[in-house]
Each structure stands twice: as C-alpha cells, then as structure tokens.
C-alpha cells in the first residue's frame, strides 16, 4: 500500500532520531497525536489558570484530572483494535442498561438525572459517546460498503435508542453529539448523498416535532435568544452579549493573560467551563484563539490520517468518527461562544474545567493510538 509505504519510509528516516520514537512505538503511543494533545492541554491549563481567578486549588484539581485522563489514554492505547471490536456489543449493551438505570435510579443534578453512583459517580452517557460509534462500526465491519438501506435502518435504531434515553434525562446536548457520532460513521461508510439530502429535508419537520414535544422551555429560550440577543440583555441574552464583548474587546493581541476585565470582573458567565474560549479570546486575542484552533485542526487531521491508515473497516470507521466528532465539539463550542449557534452546554474539549468528558475524550484518542500502533504493516 502506498500510504503504509510512505509511513515506513518516514519511520526509517525517523529512526536515527533516537530511542524516544522506538519507546513510544513500543508503548503504542502516537507521538504526533500526543504532541498535539499535550499542546492543547498545556495552552488550556494556562487559560484556565486565569479563568478560575488564579485559584491554585481549582487549577491543581484540573491538572490531576488531566493526568488521570492521559493515563487512561495510555491504558486504552494498549488494547488492540480486535479486542475492542470483540468487546463492542457488550460495552454497548452495558451502556444501554446503565442508561435505563439512570432514568430509574439516577441522581438529580441541575434539574436532570444524569449521574449514576456505582461506587464511583459517573454519567453513563459518557460511555455512549464512544460505544455508539463503536457499535455502528462493529455492525458495518463485516458488511460490504456502502451499506444497504436495511443495514442503515438497523444502525439508525442502534443510534437512536441511546440517544432517546439520554434526551429523556434530559441532556439534549449530549444526545445530539452521540447521534452525530453515529451519523458520522454512516457518512464515512458511504451513505448516499441522496439519502443525506432527504434526511436534511426531513430534519425540518423533525425540528418542529423536537421543538413542540421534546425541548424544555430553557432550551427554546436559548434558540430564541440567539435570534435576538439584545431582546433581554440581562436575561437569556446576557451570556452571548458578554461573551461577544469579551472576544471583541480582546482584539488582535488580547488584553494580556489574567487581565481580561470581562472575565476577571465576572461579567462573563461560565467563564471556567462553556465560555472559556471567550476568556482566551479576550486575554490572548485573535492570535491566541487561532493558535488553539490550529492545534485542534492538527489533532483532527492526525486522527483522520490515522483513520485512512487503519487496516480494517471497524478501525477506519471508528477512528474517522472519533476524529470528526472531536471537530464537531470544537466547532459547536466556538460557534456558540461567538454567537453563531444557540447556547448549548458543550464545553471546549480539553480546555474547559471539568473531568468527565475529558476522560472520555482521551480514551477516544487512546483508541486512535491503538489503531495506529497495532496495525500490521501488511495489506489485507
């Protein structure tokens, strides 16, 4: 294969660089991906230090979470893709059961049942962020691509079941992201453009059903606010207005680290979590946020490269879905913070304060590393 040949060539050239590359290879670590991720995390920690108001305790807490997530990534990277594939249906099934348990016994937090306490407290919906694309990829692994209509219907059921359960918690943001991850597998598997067009058209009545029967008032309010943020500047539109002021007032070079008046004087809401991108825009300016976006694109690009290099259908689809889903996270958060799309509670991956989603994300990147480092250098 051309691609693997190139890879081999590069490997050989890189060999004289020393033992580091060889050790990484043996530890199933992809150096480029790891480098990109560590740069993002490092930049994130710098911004977070300012966003938490230089609170050392909170900042160290985040450092610890990050370390745990990176260790998790290394662990996952050791699992060969074939093992992951064989475990996939069981993981997916277990996730479904846990979601049902959450609805039945879950703990309430911020008006929604999302948490489950099984020794450690966690959100089963996080499992599904990986389990759903894995399941879709597993189903398509043995089948000829592009998938036939019947197969797609089955995948649709596999995706919609957990999505609906999560939407009922209610956690619409996560549900949509999980649906997106499943949908991306189908897109990568070669779903026809006609069908996509039809689905796109159907999404209009679908959105109306969603609006009328599923969306909570606060979610509707968010959409309305996006259309006219100045209508209620101290209410729902406040976040978007303050966020735009923060980013806009940052200018090209920013107001300087820890000197953002919007962020430091608490005009900016959720500055440590969902709106941390605005803190960065204010303090580090356009150059700062473009650097971060560049790093994200590098990581996504590397992920897609790994997907293309992947040896089989399962690994290919999974790696592609994980990489593109990561891009969707970044796009949705930055578009929300800059006021392009409604406020949805999606944190900026690897930068926002909080640990649950970070572990899932890093596990995903662990899968990418596993796929890349376990591949046999022979074509099928």
């Amino acid at each position, binding site marked *: 294969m051309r691609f693997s040949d190139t890879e081999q060539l590069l490997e050989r050239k890189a060999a004289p660089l020393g033992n580091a590359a060889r050790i990484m290879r043996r530890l199933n670590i992809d150096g480029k991906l790891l480098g990109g991720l560590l740069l993002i995390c490092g930049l994130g920690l710098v911004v977070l230090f300012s966003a938490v108001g230089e609170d050392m305790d909170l900042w160290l807490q985040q450092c610890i979470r990050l370390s745990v997530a990176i260790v998790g990534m290394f662990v996952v990277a050791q699992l060969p893709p074939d093992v992951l594939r064989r475990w996939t249906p069981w993981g997916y099934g277990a996730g479904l059961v846990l979601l049902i348990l959450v609805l039945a016994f879950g703990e309430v937090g911020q008006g929604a049942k999302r948490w489950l306490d099984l020794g450690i407290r966690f959100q089963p919906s996080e499992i599904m962020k990986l389990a759903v694309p894995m399941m879709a990829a597993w189903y398509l692994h043995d089948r000829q691509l592009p998938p036939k209509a019947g197969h797609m219907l089955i995948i649709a059921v596999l995706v919609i079941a957990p999505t609906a359960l999560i939407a009922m918690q209610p956690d619409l943001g996560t549900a949509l992201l999980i649906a997106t991850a499943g949908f991306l597998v189908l897109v990568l598997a070669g779903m026809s453009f006609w069908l996509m067009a039809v689905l796109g058209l159907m999404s209009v009545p679908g959105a109306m059903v969603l609006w009328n029967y599923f969306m909570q008032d606060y979610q509707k309010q968010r959409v309305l606010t996006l259309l006219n943020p100045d209508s209620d500047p101290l209410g729902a539109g406040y976040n978007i207005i303050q966020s735009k002021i923060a980013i806009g007032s940052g200018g090209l070079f920013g107001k300087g680290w820890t000197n953002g008046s919007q962020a430091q*004087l608490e005009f900016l809401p959720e500055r440590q979590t969902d709106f941390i991108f605005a803190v960065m825009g204010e303090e580090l300016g356009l150059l700062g946020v473009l650097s971060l976006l560049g790093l994200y694109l590098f990581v996504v690009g590397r992920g897609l490269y790994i997907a293309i290099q992947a040896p089989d259908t399962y690994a290919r689809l999974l790696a592609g879905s994980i990489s593109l889903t990561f891009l969707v996270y970044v796009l949705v958060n930055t578009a929300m913070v800059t006021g392009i799309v409604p406020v949805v509670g999606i944190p900026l991956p690897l930068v926002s304060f909080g640990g649950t989603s970070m572990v899932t994300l890093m596990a995903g990147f662990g899968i990418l590393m596993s796929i890349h480092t376990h591949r046999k250098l022979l074509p099928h």
Partner: protein
Amino acid sequence: MRLLAPIKDHHSERRLFVRRVVLSSIIGFLLCSSVVARLVQLQVFDHELFAEKSQGNRIRIEAMPPTRGLIFDRKGRVLAENLPAYQLELIPEQVADLDDTLNRLAEIKLIDKEDIPRIRSLSLSGPRFKPVTLRFRLSEAEISNFAIQRPRFPGVDFQPRLVRRYPHGESVAHALGYVGAVDTTDLARLDPAAYVGSAHTGKTGIEISFESELHGSPGYRQVVTNARGRQVPPDFRELSASLPERESPLPGANLYLSLDLDLQILATQALRGRRGAIVAINPENGEILALVSAPAFDPNIFATGMSTDEFSALQADAGQPLFNRAVRGTYPPGSTIKPMLSLAALETGATNLTHRNFCRGFYTLPHSTHRYRDWKPQGHGDMDLHDAITQSCDVYFYSISTAIGIDQMHYYLDQFGLGQYTGIDMVGEHQGLLPSREWKRHAFRERADQVWFPGETVIASIGQGYMLATPLQLANAVATLATRGKRFEPRIVAAIEDPLTGTRKIIAPKQLPDVEIDNEVYWETVIGAMHDVMQSDKGTARAAGRDAAYEMAGKSGTAQVFSVGQDESYEADEIEEHLRDHALFIAFAPLGNPKIAVAVVVENGGSGSGVAAPMARAIMDRYLGVNPNAL
C-alpha cells in the same frame, strides 16, 4: 463471529472511505473557517465597538455625597455638625436568607422586630449590591457585641458614615429643625442628580429652608466594578490604572445664625414642663435672638433613625412636641395688643392724652344690657390712657373701641405685622388672623354670619374674639413698638459662609415701611405706660420688673380659652388645666435704646404677668448681661 463473512472489496471500500474523509475534511474546514471569520469580525473589524462596551461594563460612576454645611450661633458656637458614626448596613446580594438574618439580628437586639418589614422591603427594592442601612448610630457596646458575632451574619457589617449631630439637642430643635432620611416625597421636590449619594435632607426649620445652601453639590468618581456592580479594590491589578478623572464634592455652606445659644438654653429651661413659646428679636435689625417652642424633642433621633415605637410616641404625645408653637401656634393676643391699639386710638382721635373714663368693672354698649366685663370685677375706677395700659383696664379700651372702629383697628394693627406673614427665613409660619369687616364677609358662608357686630369690635379691643397671633408675630410687633415704628423682617440666618474661601456673605436686614404714626408724644406715652407696667407701683407686672438694672417696657396678656357665662366668675382652681387662660407677655429693653424685644406665650399658664413676665425678664437680663444667672 460470523461463519460466512461476505467477500468484501477492500480496495473500493478504502477508496470510498478516503473520498468521504476528504469530503468531511473540506466541510469541517469550511465550518472552521466560518468560526475564524466570525472571530476576525469580532476581534478586528468590531474591536473598537466591543472595547468600548467592555470599558463601559466595568466603569461605574459613583457619586460622593457632599458634607453638609455647619450651623453656628451668633457667637460661633456649633449648633449642627457632622460626626462620624457607625452604621449597621446590610448588602442584600451577600445575604443568603434575609428573613433569618433579620430575625437573628432582632434577637440580639440590634434591630427592632417592628422594623423588619420596612427593612425587608428596602432590601428587596434597590440594587442588590447597594447597602441598606439597618441602624444609623451604633453605641460602642453594640459595636463590640456585633463584632464578636459578625461571622454569624455574612453580608451585615458596620460602616463609618457622617451623621448630622445637634449637640444642644432639644434647645435648638424648633429653630434649626432637623434632617431625616431622604424619602420619596423629598425626591419629588429635590433635584435627584444632586442627591444621588445623599442619605439625608432637611425636613423642617432652618435645615429645610436653607437646604440648597447647606447641602452642597455631590462629586463623583469612577470605580471599577464587577458584573454585580460591586466595587473592586482600587489596586486590583492594572484594571483601574487608567481610571479617568474624578471630581470632589463641594461641601455645603456654613450658616451663622443670629440665635444666641445661651438664650435658647435659658428659654428652654424656663418653659420646661410647660407648653408654650418664647421668641426674642433684636429690634434694630430684626435678627431673631431666641426661638423656642416647648415641649421640644431631640432632633438627633431623626438623623440617626428611630424605631417605629419612638416615632409614634412622639406623634401621640399630648404636648405635641413636634409642633413649632413659636411660628405655627396661634393664640388670642389678649391685652398685649393694648399698646398698639392705644397708638391707633390716639392717631385716629378716638381718645387723647387727657381723656378719662370711669371703670365700674364692666362695660355695656348703648341700648344693650350685655356686660363686657373687666378682668377686675370691682373695677379700676377713674382711668386715663396711661393708667389703662399700666393696669390693663379692659373697660377703658371697650369704651374707645367703637370710636376707633374695627377697620381702623385692622389698619393700624396690620402695620405692626399682625395677621400677616412676618417673612421670617424659615418655612411653615402661620399667618395668624386680624379680623375686619372685609375679612368677615369672606370668612363665613351664611349671610347672617357675614355681618360685623359692634360687640365684636368691643372684644377685639382687648385682643379676644377672632384675633389670633403667633408668638413670632407678637415678638415682631413689640420690636416695632420698641423702635417707635421702624420695622424689619425677622431673620434667623445672619451670614452664609463659603466653606472653601471662608468668605461670609452677611445677610442685610430688610427694613419694611414704618408704622404711619409720626407723633413722638404718642409713642413715648404708650412706651412710658409699658415701662410703668413693669416698673411702677401699680403696674400689672411690677413683680417681674422689680430691681432691674435697666429700664424696660412690657405688657401682659391673658387670653381666654374658655368663655365664662354672664353670671359666673372665672376661678382658675376650679377649671381643668387645658381650659385655663393662656399667659402672654411682650417686653423690650432698654427703654430708650432697645436691644431686645421678647414675646412669651405659655399655654394654659394662667396669668400673663405672673407666669410669662418673669420668663421675659430672665431673657432680657441674660441678653443685656446684667444678671447672667437669671432664673
């Protein structure tokens, strides 16, 4: 595991996948570009707009209230000052459970239980970051008590503030008035821009009359605030380094009053336990030397805030301590108008210096049997005008009353300022009432009541009937007698001092047209008779005038509150206190070169010469410095 895996075309699958990845990448890149475009729009093209907005966000203009002007007496003694006091304040946004906090504060007696609803509504109305004052002045014991318990009350703390303080309390209460918390009715009257930071405003007396001078103008400064409007410390990084200009508040002007604190204290002591008023005026320029109304109150409690109980107690007090009798109380002037009336009688020819009249103890109008009685039942005997004034013979004045006529009475008494506003530089004075035919035509609705009866002229001649005067008007009138007809508008504020330059603007006395009686003999006759009231064997107030080091003139008055029937006699001991006569006295001294004119009214005091005259004497003694320890 599937046993029969279908044959897959790996190459075409892979080509398909790569195509899809490339396509997704292009779409992802386009979406990412739209975010970048948005960032460029916000951070490059609209940067200035948002930079301005963020600046406006954090800078708040904060008003700095001016320091209220001080008030001094004529000798420069402080009557009103501003003292730092510790206030108990609550910041609503920092209090988790308002009701619980207030209840616990009430338990440790820092606030009153009755005040809780008021504080509650105050806390819920204004901005959440703006402190609400719970108590204006904490005692040292309360401060130390609260300091120990402070951790139990997050959001509650004590703060130093300037609070109005009247060191001489009730003795200047009615003259100065007081300041109180700015309320909604004040805000309708005042310029809101000038009062943004001010908690207090003048409510009565000089404090309200000279509010615009005393208040000063507020300054402002720009402070850095966080999203909740709370000010952040000025050294908060460089956020406040570029803070724009500030403007210091301009303190209010200081007032120098013509009041003499010694006289205020003396008059307050003299009236202790009684209801009444004392007003003293410098006849040469209209300066008020003393203005006291009793009972009084402690004006400090209005500035420091009082409990609901205290306020309702003040309002319910039968003595009406909040009522300024000196300028608002109206009383029948009684015999105190006799000197003025004598001048009118001489000027109009109703009597002359030699005319005599025999007093049998009563007077009847022609063709009438109704007896107008003298205060002395057995009568004064043969009287001329001098004797009639000295011994206060009512019958003499009855007998000349119809010859003067009510309209001439009105014409001359009006020139002494009765029945009209004196024009004192203090709000709230009462006009009093000087009757005339014209007045009666308009005062009554029934036609029968609009007619002036001759009998009404008779009783008007001794200051009874419809006639009403305030103590201030009486003092002003006796001052006019003292100057032999020269009149001035009464003034309390003598000078206004610019607090910055220290220059004083002296307020010139305002002279009014002289009384239209030019015959000096008439004046000297009447004033001589008033002298004899106090300093002759037969004078009604000879007891009060005894052993004086200077010559003085006076006239007693006794105003009926209660009508005695035709066949009854007035026995002071037999009637209830609130129906007893009001005691009045007017006086001035020294005789030839008058320096002070005094009017005293003691409600239900009984005899003017017995009760009110000694008070007037004590005031004059003190002012003229002949007997500093009078009373």
